[in-house]
């Protein structure tokens, strides 16, 4: 009896969570895929009609904007956060005295929820209240900083707020990476008289490749599911200039009673995530098999 338990206990302990994941993640992905092929409006219907919802989706200029915004937002957010995080981490790695305090300062934005970040930046960027009004008040009446209300620039306002929120976190990741590089190699390089910037570009940064990958994966999924920041900062406006796929999906599912559209946009979002995650998983698995 005891032996039976010993062999089966791990399976029994894991089974509930396995079943839960099976139903609530993969089951519902399947359900969404099914609904995305129907004409569901207010309530889900289950007669399959083909790819009409996807046709409608890609005919919709609003979805176009949303998808474009995702690439602008995702690209800039991930790129700038990583560069900024890396620079901050390298600067912080120079054995400065108050490192602990400074690290906390930079990490702190991560402790705020996106709603708080969005609301704060909404006030900062509001032309009538924030930076523009302040600088104009200093005696520069022609100063203009209207990203938030300019439909062409509003998406960059969101990028700005998102970077402010996450670059500290990326910095912490990189800092850990920098500390894990073998100091022997760095000393050896220094003994050979190699300049510091070369030490970084040729030795330290290349050896941190896995950290780059983790930072990328974390930021990419944050970008794709980004929702609360947009809602708090611009509400998707002006017009629908700052819509992202997640806010599009929400509008279709909950405001417009168009569940089929919402499901098809959710499926596209999932495919975008797959396009990023699958190569990562593939390379990880291959590395292990080697």
């Amino acid at each position, binding site marked *: 009896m005891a032996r039976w338990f010993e062999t089966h206990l791990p399976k029994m302990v894991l089974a509930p969570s396995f079943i839960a994941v099976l139903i609530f993640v993969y089951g519902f992905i399947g359900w969404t895929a099914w609904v995305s092929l129907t004409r569901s409006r207010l309530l889900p219907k289950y007669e399959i009609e083909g790819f009409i919802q996807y046709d409608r989706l890609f005919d919709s*200029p609003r979805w176009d904007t949303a998808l474009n915004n995702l690439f602008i937002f995702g690209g800039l957010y991930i790129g700038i956060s990583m560069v900024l995080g890396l620079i901050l981490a390298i600067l912080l790695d120079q054995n400065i005295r108050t490192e602990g305090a400074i690290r906390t300062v930079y990490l702190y934005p991560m402790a705020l929820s996106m709603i708080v970040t969005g609301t704060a930046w909404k006030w900062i960027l509001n032309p009538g209240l924030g930076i523009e009004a302040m600088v104009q008040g200093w005696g520069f009446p022609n100063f203009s900083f209207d990203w938030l209300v300019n439909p062409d620039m509003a998406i960059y306002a969101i990028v700005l707020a998102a970077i402010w929120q996450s670059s500290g976190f990326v910095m912490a990741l990189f800092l850990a990476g920098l500390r894990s590089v073998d100091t022997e190699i760095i000393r050896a390089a220094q003994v050979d008289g190699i300049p510091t910037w070369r030490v970084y570009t040729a030795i330290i940064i290349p050896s941190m490749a896995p950290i780059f990958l983790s930072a990328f994966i974390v930021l990419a999924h944050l970008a794709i599911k980004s929702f609360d920041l947009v809602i708090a900062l611009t*509400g998707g406006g002006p017009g629908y200039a700052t819509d992202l796929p997640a806010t599009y999906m929400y509008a279709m599912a909950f405001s417009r009673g*168009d569940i089929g559209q919402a499901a098809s946009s959710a499926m596209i979002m999932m495919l975008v995530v797959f396009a990023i995650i699958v190569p990562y998983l593939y390379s990880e698995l291959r590395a292990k098999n080697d």
Partner: protein
Amino acid sequence: MKYTAFAGVSAFAIAVGGMAVAEPQAEVLHWWTSGGEAKAVAVLQEEFAEQGGTWTDMPVAGGGGDAAMTALRARVLSGNAPTAVQLKGPAIQEWYEEGVLADISNVAEEENWSEVLPASIANHMKCDGTWCAAPVNVHRVDWIWANADVLEQNGIEMPSTWDEFNAAAEKLQEAGVIPLAHGGQAWQDATVFETVVLGLGGPDFYQSALVDLDQEALTSDTMKAVFDQMRTLRGYVDDNFSGRDWNLATAMVMNGEAAFQIMGDWAKGEFLAAGKEPGEDFLCASTPGDGFLYNVDSFAMFDVDGEDKRAGQELLAELIVGQNFQKVFNLNKGSIPARTDVSLEEFDSCAHTSSEDMQASSENGSLLPSYAHGMALRGAQAGAITDVVTAHFNSDMSSDEAVQMLADAVANSM
């Protein structure tokens, strides 16, 4: 065996008891949670309790009803619908098509609803000829509010055409006043848009463009003129309008920062709450042009099991359309009663104008549903139009492009 017999007898007893007493039960899902609205619902709750009913309140705040609709969807899918739900416009028919609404025709006929309600509003309460919802109020959407002092100082009359409005706006702009207080949220853009459609195109054009979604009307020159006027209006709005809430725009009119606001009569509540007098401190008039755009709140009655719940539903329907509730509720809410035979003695001058216009327009066929407030179209179509309107208003899109986009968006939403 003993137990089944006992169960059978007690079930029978309950059924008989239920028939004899049938204490009315009602679970009411709504999103009237803010000050005046909550007070207005409390009135109904009290009346219901006085008639011996048990009211289960289910307020779901947030998202202008989105949260409540999500709750409703969950309840209906689990086969446990609330007795009555705050729903309006074509959404009622949409739910009816899902086969979940009840028939309250016997109450409606007993209470003679078809006599006391304007015909076009009554039509929203019917599903395939049977009554399935009860109207609570009539909000008029095509109002223009103005600061009386600002107009007087600049020698401006309340405009009766859009050209007059534009002339007045130019004058105000020169005087350094913001002509139009507006909040850059999609539904507010849509609100202004529909009043311009009604004003420039007239009631028939409004009907064919925004109710029947006639492709010809949507791409017509009149529609282009409407988008031209929207572009002109964009010039009369201050730079900081993006994302502003409607009540903040109302406050701008109140304190003289801006002259006009185009908004439904819920804006009146803001003026009154600030102690302003209609006719003296602020002026109300219909937006330039003929017609009347209504936004009618109503309660749809869902199919429920049990004698007590059905009794509650009927009592609720009777009370909602009853004279007393229609008066007290609308005094609190700033709207006017849906039934036309309620005394308006205690109402203010704006409400009187609204009521007279409603009856006049009901007779000449220009009593029209508001598209921006979900009375004319289903969610997907209305949303598609709003997307175009707000995209045009917030960019430098030309009217030709906008008209084309509008036709495409409507076709795509079907």
